[in-house]
């Protein structure tokens, strides 16, 4: 018995990886193909995110960093889209730049998804993108110090002077809010160092869930007004009542996490089973 038991436990502990992968794959595909529509609670951070944007009066200038890379698009894209819906509906003046090389292209993708014309928003009047600027923190510092001296054109190489939105925009002090969507710690932390510290610009950031813990100390010290992960896009979509990709992912995430919990339990049972049977 003991010998047989040991073998069983060992086999359970050393399940081929392929089996595990297949389970995860199924856990993702099944809810994607047939959504279940499980409930989504709205967290405090998502509310803080919504409120920070919502309380700005129409016409306020907001600075956005499209700082994520293609790899992070599935996670951060939905939140960027949801936030743009919100900002354009509120008639805020949204000026974006990118600290990530792929930013301008991802900006185009996001705008195609938002459809700014729904809100009567026009490029150059209500929103604009001033392009990728190399140097990460150097770029942030330069734009904060004097935006117009750093760049005179947008990402399409059109002079910024032609855009009505740029009237009165000079440096970091022209903006009432800074929003950063990023996959990089250098970016999310860099804005704290280069804008929040010297100019006291209110700042909210949307980052990969795995970056949240590292950013938490800034949040607690009040250097960030809201810190959300990409997965919270669904909650913001509910708040602004524009359902999108974020809410769709909630089912998948629920199922996957339940599977993970099962993995943990099974893994531990196998481990202790093997130990108990002297393996």
């Amino acid at each position, binding site marked *: 018995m003991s010998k047989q038991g040991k073998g069983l436990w060992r086999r359970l502990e050393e399940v*081929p990886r392929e089996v595990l992968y297949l389970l995860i794959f199924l856990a993702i595909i099944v809810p994607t193909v047939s959504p279940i529509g499980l409930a989504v609670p709205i967290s405090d951070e998502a509310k803080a995110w919504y409120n920070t944007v919502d309380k700005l009066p129409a016409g306020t200038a907001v600075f956005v960093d499209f700082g994520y890379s293609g790899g992070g698009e599935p996670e951060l894209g939905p939140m960027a889209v949801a936030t743009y819906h919100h900002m354009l509906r509120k008639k805020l003046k949204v000026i974006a730049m990118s600290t990530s090389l792929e930013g301008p292209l991802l900006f185009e993708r996001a705008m195609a998804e938002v459809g700014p014309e729904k809100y009567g928003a026009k490029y150059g009047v209500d929103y604009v993108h001033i392009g990728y600027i190399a140097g990460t923190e150097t770029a942030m510092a330069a734009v904060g110090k004097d935006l117009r001296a750093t760049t005179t054109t947008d990402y399409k190489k059109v002079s910024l002077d032609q855009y009505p939105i740029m009237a009165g925009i000079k440096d970091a002090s022209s903006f009432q809010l800074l929003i950063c969507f990023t996959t990089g710690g250098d970016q999310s932390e860099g804005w704290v160092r280069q804008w929040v*510290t010297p100019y006291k610009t209110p700042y909210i950031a949307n980052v990969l869930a795995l970056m*949240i813990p590292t950013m938490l*100390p800034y949040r607690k010290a009040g250097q960030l007004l809201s810190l959300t992960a990409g997965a919270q896009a669904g909650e913001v979509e509910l708040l602004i009542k524009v359902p999108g990709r974020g809410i769709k992912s909630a089912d998948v995430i629920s199922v*996957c*996490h339940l599977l993970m919990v099962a993995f943990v339990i099974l893994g531990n049972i196998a481990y202790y089973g093997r130990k108990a049977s002297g393996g």
Partner: protein
Amino acid sequence: MFSLWIFSIAFRDNVFFKFAEHTFVGAAAGHNIVYGVDNVLRYGWTPFTKGALLYVVAFLLGIVLYTRYHKKYFWMSRFPLSVMVGIGIGLSMRATVTAEFIAQIQSTAALKILGVDAWTGFSNLLFIIIVLTVVYFFIFTFPSVHKGNLGIISKFARYAMMASFGYSFANALLSRFNMIFGRVDFLYTSWLPLPGAMVALPIVLILLAYAMIPAQKRPWPKPSKPS
């Protein structure tokens, strides 16, 4: 649209993976060049043509950067590099002290232990204790502070950090599932409806299944020959 079948195969099988990887690396390098040129023109050339003549120095320095590939004159590339390093250090040092040292201490010190309800008080106290023990943990050069019973401080700090890593790890899982879902969702909603996808899908699935069969001998990614 060829990129999509790469997805299915990217996590298994040698040749396809290698092909995808080389496409990725090549595209990334090309993309970098494109934006490098774009930035040099927009932020350097435009002001230069508008009369900021000093920018010519930046151009020269930029070109000198490429001497690093020269056997004899590689040291010249140190000048532009030192300008970049200098700016970087200056920018980070000036703000790090305020943002990550002073502000963090200040925010910790501002926590109230007394005069709040018991649970908040306890949480705040725990918070302060963890901050202090973790900072203590990272004191390396005075061995006497970790001797004997004082060792328990570092131990406690390690436990606290483990809790935070557990939290981070769970969050990382969330991140990755989101990404996988993003791809699957894209395949399902944007790609499947396309003409031809219905023909391609079974082929991809068969390839995938094939790749799975000799699984023991073909772990992903298959070892590429060290070159």
